[in-house]
C-alpha cells in the first residue's frame, strides 16, 4: 500500500487538473464508469445473462440513474484489491463501489473522499458447534485459518493479545482456499469479515453444525468513494446513497413511489422526490433525480434484501445495517 500511495497521490494531482467536472464528463460520455469487484458473493457477481448484479452494483445503477436517467448506462470496471485505488486516482473510473473499508489513511493520504457507509461489516469467526465453544474469547489454543496480508490478520493478533489468549494461525491465500482448509478440518476456526463468513457458511452441506460466534472484532465500514477535489461530484454520490437510506426510513419503495409522486403529507418525502423545493437543481441534476435513483433498484432496504438479506442464500440479518430507529446505525442526514 505504501509503495503505491505516493504514485497515487501524483496521479490524482495530474488527473485532477485534467478534468475539473466529473459530472460534465459523465454526461458527455453518456455512461457512468463504476469500479466494482471482480467477483464477491452478494456484492458483485454475474447473473445468467452475463449482467453484473449485487449490492455494490446496485449503487452504481442508482447513481447512473440519478445522473443520466438510466440505470443501465454504467460501464463496469472490474478491479482487484491492488488496482482499485490507482484506477480511481487516474480517472479510469468516476466512483469506486467495491466493498472498500473507510480508513483514515485512505481518506486522507490517498486523496479520496468517502461519500458514506453503505455496509457496516466487521471481522467475525466461524467454528464447529462440536468444539463446545460459545464465544471467541474461549478460543484459547485454537488453530485459526486467516487470509494473509489483510487487515484481518492484524485485527486477529490485536484481539488475542488484548484478551491474553493464545492461538495457532494457519495462513491461507484466498477465501476459497480458506473455506476448503476449514472444511478439511485443518483449522478449528475461520475468520474473515462477517458478510464473507455468511457467504462461506451458505455453501456448507452441513451448515447447522457450524456457528458464527457473536464477537465482531473490528470495524469495517464499507462504502463508495470518489476522487478528492471534485466536491460537486462527491455531493451527488453522497446524496444518492443518502436518498436510498432516507427512502427506506420514510417508507418510499419502488412499489409505492409512483403513488407518492402525486404528493404526500410529509414535506421531507416531497422534497426528496422533487415535488417540493429544488434539491435536484442544487446538485446540478434533474428535479426527479432521487425518483430515478430509487426506481433503479428500490430503497436501501430493498437492495439489501435482494442481494444479502435473509431470503438470499447468504442470509445476512440487517444487524448494524438496520436503520437507526430500528436498532442499527444507518442514519442519513435529512433532505432539506
Amino acid at each position, binding site marked *: 500500500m505504501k509503495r503505491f500511495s505516493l504514485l497515487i497521490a501524483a*496521479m490524482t494531482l*495530474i*488527473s485532477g487538473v*485534467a478534468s475539473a467536472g466529473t459530472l460534465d464528463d459523465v454526461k458527455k460520455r453518456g455512461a457512468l464508469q463504476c469500479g466494482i*469487484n*471482480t*467477483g*464477491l*458473493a*452478494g*456484492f*458483485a*457477481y*454475474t*447473473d*445468467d445473462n*452475463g449482467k453484473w*448484479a*449485487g449490492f455494490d452494483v446496485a449503487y452504481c445503477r442508482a447513481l447512473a440513474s440519478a445522473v443520466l436517467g438510466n440505470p443501465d448506462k454504467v*460501464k463496469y*470496471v*472490474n*478491479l*482487484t484489491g*491492488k*488496482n482499485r485505488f*490507482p*484506477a480511481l486516482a*487516474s*480517472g*479510469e473510473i468516476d466512483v469506486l463501489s467495491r466493498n472498500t473499508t473507510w480508513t483514515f489513511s485512505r481518506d486522507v493520504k490517498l486523496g479520496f473522499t468517502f461519500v458514506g457507509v453503505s455496509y457496516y461489516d466487521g471481522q467475525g469467526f466461524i467454528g464447529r458447534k462440536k468444539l463446545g465453544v460459545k464465544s471467541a474469547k474461549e478460543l484459547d489454543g485454537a488453530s485459526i485459518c486467516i487470509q494473509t496480508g489483510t487487515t484481518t490478520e492484524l485485527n486477529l493478533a490485536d484481539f488475542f493479545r488484548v484478551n491474553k489468549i493464545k492461538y495457532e494461525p494457519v495462513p491461507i491465500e484466498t477465501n*476459497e482456499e480458506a*473455506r476448503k482448509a476449514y472444511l478439511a478440518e485443518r483449522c478449528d476456526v475461520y475468520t474473515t469479515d462477517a458478510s464473507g463468513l455468511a*457467504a462461506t457458511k*451458505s*455453501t456448507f452441506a452441513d451448515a447447522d453444525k457450524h456457528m458464527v460466534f457473536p464477537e465482531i472484532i473490528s470495524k469495517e465500514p464499507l462504502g463508495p468513494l470518489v476522487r478528492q477535489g471534485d466536491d460537486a461530484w462527491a455531493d451527488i454520490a453522497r446524496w444518492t446513497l443518502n436518498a436510498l437510506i432516507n427512502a427506506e426510513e420514510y417508507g418510499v419503495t419502488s412499489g409505492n413511489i409512483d403513488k407518492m409522486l402525486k404528493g404526500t403529507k410529509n414535506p421531507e418525502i416531497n422534497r426528496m422526490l422533487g415535488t417540493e423545493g429544488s434539491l435536484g437543481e442544487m446538485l446540478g441534476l434533474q428535479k426527479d433525480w432521487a425518483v430515478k435513483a430509487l426506481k433503479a433498484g428500490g430503497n436501501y432496504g430493498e437492495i439489501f434484501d435482494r*442481494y444479502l438479506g435473509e431470503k*438470499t*442464500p*447468504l442470509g445476512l440479518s440487517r444487524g448494524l445495517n438496520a436503520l437507526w430507529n430500528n436498532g442499527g446505525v444507518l442514519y442519513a442526514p435529512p433532505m432539506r
Partner: protein
Amino acid sequence: MNSPSNEAITQYKEARPPPIASVGIIGWLRHNLFSSVSNTILTLVSIYLLSIAIPAIVDWVILSSQISGDTRFDCKVEGACWAWIDQRLGQFLFGFYPASERWRVVIAFILLFPALIPWLTHGIPGQRYLRWFSVAYPVIATILLAGGFGLQEVPTDKFGGFMLNLIVGLSGIVLSLPVGIVLALGRQSKLPLIRWFSIGFIEAVRGVPLITLLFVSNILLPIFLPPDVTLDSIIRVIIMVTAFASAYMAEVIRGGLQAIPSGQYEAADAMGLNYWKSMRLIILPQALRVSIPGIVNTFIGLFKDTTLVIVIGLFDILGIANAMVSNPDWLGLSTETYVFVAAFFFAVCFSMSRYSMWLERRLARQRH
C-alpha cells in the same frame, strides 16, 4: 557312416516360438512392468494408487454427478454439480459478447483453421492461396469480432471467456516468434546500437513479471498518453504479452543460434551469401529446428499467462469462473468450475505439445 548326424540338412528347421514369457501380453508385462524388483514394487504401488484414484474421480465427475438444476441448491448429489454448464457455457466461451452476435465468433474460429494450417504443415492443396488468406485473416477476424462494415459493433470490453484467451494467446504466439527472431539476431549483431537496444529490451522485459507489465499498460499508459488518445485494453494486453513472450523467445532462439557450428556461418560466407540470405537459407532453418522444444515451451507458457488479464479487469475464462461462483445461486462450486477451465487449457496446451513432437519427427526425417 550313415549315422543321422551326418545326413545333410537340406532345409531350415522351423524356428521354435520364443518362450511364452517373452512375447504377447505376458512378455510385454515382464519387459515393461516387472523387469526388476524395484520396477515391480513401483508397478504395484502405481496400480494401487490408480485403483484408489480412478474410481473416485470417475464417481465424482460422472457417476454421482448431476447435470440438471437451476441453482446449486438443486444439486442433491455427493459428486460434482454440473448444472451450471447449461446456463453458463456461453459465458465461459464468449464472455459478455452479445448472445445474438456469437455466430460471428464461431465463424472467426472456424476460419482460423484454413488460416493456420498452411503454416503448420506441407502438402495442403492450394497452400499458396491459403497463405494469402492467412495474411488477410487478422483483418477479417477483427471485423468479424469487433464489427463494422455493416456488422453491429461490439466494444472490446464485451470480449471474454475462452475466446479472450484464444485471441490474446494466438496473437501473442503469432507475433512473438518473428519479434523474438529479430531480437535474437539483433543481440548478435555487429552494429552496437542494434545490439545494445536488443540486450536492453530483452533484459528489461525479462526482468519484470508479466503482471507488472499489464498493470503498467493499464494504469500508467493512459496518464502519459494525451487525453483524447485511447488504446483499446485488449490491444494493450496483446502488445504487452507479445513483448514479454518475445524477450523469452529471443533467448530461446539465441540458444539455437549458438548451437550452429561456426563452420556453417563460414560456409555461408564462402558461398558469397549476404547476411540476410545466409540467415534465411543456412542459419535460421537449422537454429529454429534445434529450438522447437524451447519455442513451444514459451508458447505454452504464454497461453497460460493469458489468465493474468484479470488484474486489469478483463474476464478470461478463469475470471468468468470466479465471477460465476460469486453468484449466490452457484456459491462454492469452485472445484467444478476450475476442473472445467483446466480441461480447456489442457486441450490447447496438449495439442501444441503433440504438434511440436510431430514437427520434430518430420524435420528429423527430412534431415537424414
